[in-house]
């Protein structure tokens, strides 16, 4: 089959894959909410707009916090933060993974050994705890910084997987051909090998995306998230901090967790869907 044919085929299956459909639509729903939300609400997340501890009402859709902040506002801004972290953190994680994976997998030899060692080390270290320690000593923490840190510790498994893939592709005829035609290794990697792994890289990115979101949520929940602004994890942190459970303020801690679960879950399911699309063996006839 030729390239274009393949693409059409993927599209063809993609549109017929329920997992993919459901997953994507859930994610999109929240993306839209994150984008539109701030325009809908006329408050700021950390603004004291009402008497505290208000249950959901027509005015405050998700109720208010003990301090009278509008939960819905915090929620939508939190969603934004969540997606940003996912995008940046997940993106960075994937990027490092790709670089390390490609280089290790294509070059092999000593370089491979070294990178492999590195990967294994970062793999073994419980990244969150390191993140905690780092975060604990930073006076002021921003969303960007958080994402970068997350990305810097999320890449190992991606690198491993990509390395393996590259390894198998390296010995394929078309790569040999390129090599014989005197192409530079880097160009081979990016013109010959990468395109043949696009689908795979996409899957990796999705998983990294979800992972970054969870990690960020955990950090924020512990209270080591960005010292500015709001995030879903921070909302849960505050809820617990200020006795939302005891006071039965479910509207404060249910939405953020639910959103994270839904988004990440949807991402995973999308991932399976895509896998089925790219991998005929798994397609349901």
């Amino acid at each position, binding site marked *: 089959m030729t390239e274009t044919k393949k693409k059409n085929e993927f599209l063809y299956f993609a549109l017929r894959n329920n997992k993919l459909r459901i997953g994507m639509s859930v994610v999109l729903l929240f993306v839209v909410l994150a984008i539109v939300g701030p325009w809908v609400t006329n408050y700021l997340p950390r603004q004291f707009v009402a008497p505290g501890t208000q249950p959901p009402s027509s005015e405050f859709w998700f109720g208010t916090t*003990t301090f*009278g902040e509008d939960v819905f506002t915090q929620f939508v801004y939190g969603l934004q933060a969540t997606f940003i972290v996912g995008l940046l953190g997940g993106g960075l994680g994937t990027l490092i993974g790709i670089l390390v994976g490609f280089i290790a997998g294509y070059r092999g030899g000593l370089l491979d050994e070294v990178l492999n060692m590195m990967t294994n080390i970062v793999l073994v270290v419980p990244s969150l705890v390191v993140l905690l320690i780092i975060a604990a000593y930073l*006076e002021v923490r921003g969303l960007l910084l958080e994402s970068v840190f997350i990305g810097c510790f999320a890449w190992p498994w991606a690198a491993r997987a990509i390395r393996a893939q590259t390894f198998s592709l390296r010995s394929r005829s078309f790569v040999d051909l390129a090599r014989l035609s005197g192409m530079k290794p880097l160009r081979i990697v990016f013109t010959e090998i990468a395109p043949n792994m696009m689908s795979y890289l996409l899957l990796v990115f999705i998983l990294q995306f979800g992972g970054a979101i969870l990690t960020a949520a955990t950090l924020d929940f512990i209270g080591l998230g960005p010292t*500015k602004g709001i995030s879903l994890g921070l909302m849960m942190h505050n809820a617990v*901090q200020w*006795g939302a459970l005891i006071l039965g303020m479910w509207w404060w801690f249910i939405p953020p967790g639910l959103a994270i679960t839904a988004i990440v879950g949807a991402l995973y399911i999308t991932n399976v869907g895509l896998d089925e699309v790219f991998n005929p063996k798994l397609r349901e006839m």
Partner: protein
Amino acid sequence: MWWNKKKFALFTMLTLLVVVGLVGVLAQAQTFARNETLYTGGKQWGPASNWNPLMTGNYATGTLGLCYETLFLYDPLTDQFIPWLAESGKWMSPTRYELKMRPGLTWSDGTPLTAADVVFTFNLGKTATLNFSSLWDWLESVTQVGNYVDFTFTEPLYQEWANYLYTVPILPEHIWSSRTPIEVATGANDKPVGSGAYLYYGYDQSKMVWVRNDNWWAIKALGYSVAPKYIVDLVNTSNENSLGLVLQGSEDLNNNYLPGISTLIQGGYGLSTYFPGPPYHLPANTAWLDINLQKKPLDDLAFRKALACAIDVNDIVTRDYGNMVEVANPTGLLSVWDKYVDQAVVDKLGLSYDPAQAKKFLTDAGYKDIDGDGFVEAPDGSKIALKIIVPNGWSDWMAAIQIISNGAQAVGINLEPSFPDFNGYLDARLNGTFDLAIDNQSQISNSPWSYYHFIFYDKLADIPSTQGGNYGRYNNQAAFDLVTQLDKVPVDDLAGMQAICSKLQTIQLTDLPIIPLWYNGAWAQMSNRYWTNWPSSAEGGDHYFPLTWSGYWNMTSILMLVNLEPAQ
């Protein structure tokens, strides 16, 4: 087959673990009968780790107060010194103070507590670095004369001395004499032997337990007896948890700041606070605005005045604190120090919320918005961008500085709230790198001197290591001298104190080195489910501080225990 092997291994593991788990925490058996146990919480932010009354602010709840005791108690509400281990004490001459010890005192191990122990304790300050070591800069000697103790001073600082009388814990010589200065200063001193109403019982990760001392001297001497057999002080894990415990009535006295308590008091949880209505709690310290006077434009008085007028403290009190605190007097002196406030000065110089006035101050001083971004520029045209900091996570303060910066922006001052981690906050203050910060480090005490000593702390160079206060680096020798003078005024010379305080207030209100905001409360939520007759503002009620915090037991909180009664 490894499969089944593993399964088997798993179960042996589990059983093994239960055992390990138990062995890991093995100790004696006992549960505390609810009706004779007082559950407290709010002081301890971690498991008890030392019982050394010399390690101020660090020792387990009640180490000083329940276990170790002081010569006097001090009652801030009546400004009275209550003889405790000492029967009486008076100045025999301007440089000689004589203390008469109470007869028949004993340590919990049966050894008698005598004047010798007092002498020993004060002498410790010479050898070891203790909170009262500096006393020896102006104390010449301590000697025992039978049942009396004689203190001879080179240059008595009366105010400070009075403070030591109810803050220095008296230690048993027969136990402490064998310890090295390091041990004395920083030893954990587990299984403490004291003279107080309670004895060390035990502790674990979640609590510290004291058991009643049935041979407490005060039973005979004063006819006092403390009702609870056990005092179980729970570790604060989270507000969530504290709140839960209070509402379920499983914690009888909680000294945390619990937002929204005002609504819960009516909530039928059987809770009470010192005042039935706003401000609910007694004031414990003043929260004020530290201003870094080394920075432009904060070094400009006019600008500071504008700032002072731009802050709507009322808004903070009502919306942020739900009226659980009160607006501070412009002098920042706590209500117990009202008699030192020179109302004339305050009326003349005191500033209060007045946006119009604030704008006027700015324009008059040449601050105007040149580039039209809604914020004023300095007279020299330079932009102004200030940050106000509080530690991240201190939600009530975070809310407060948001309101403050809103107010400032409303009058055209570009002020942004910022929430560094506690480290950063501390560091910025100690090293003077901040612009504006909230501060409440000076606690209630027997003398306004301690407050002025803090805001007018004179050793500017030493601030980072001494944390003595004056983080804005206000430098005015006149003020510093006044503070020293104040220290030297005898405690009974009210007029003399007032005179100096009035001068200090004039300086403070004219120069505005700090801006007092509100009084932080002596947060105390009391549950009447198992114990009643808590301190309250009511007529005939006990006007005591219902606090388990360090330094408050000896400010009448111990008397709260004496009058507590089990609920029927």
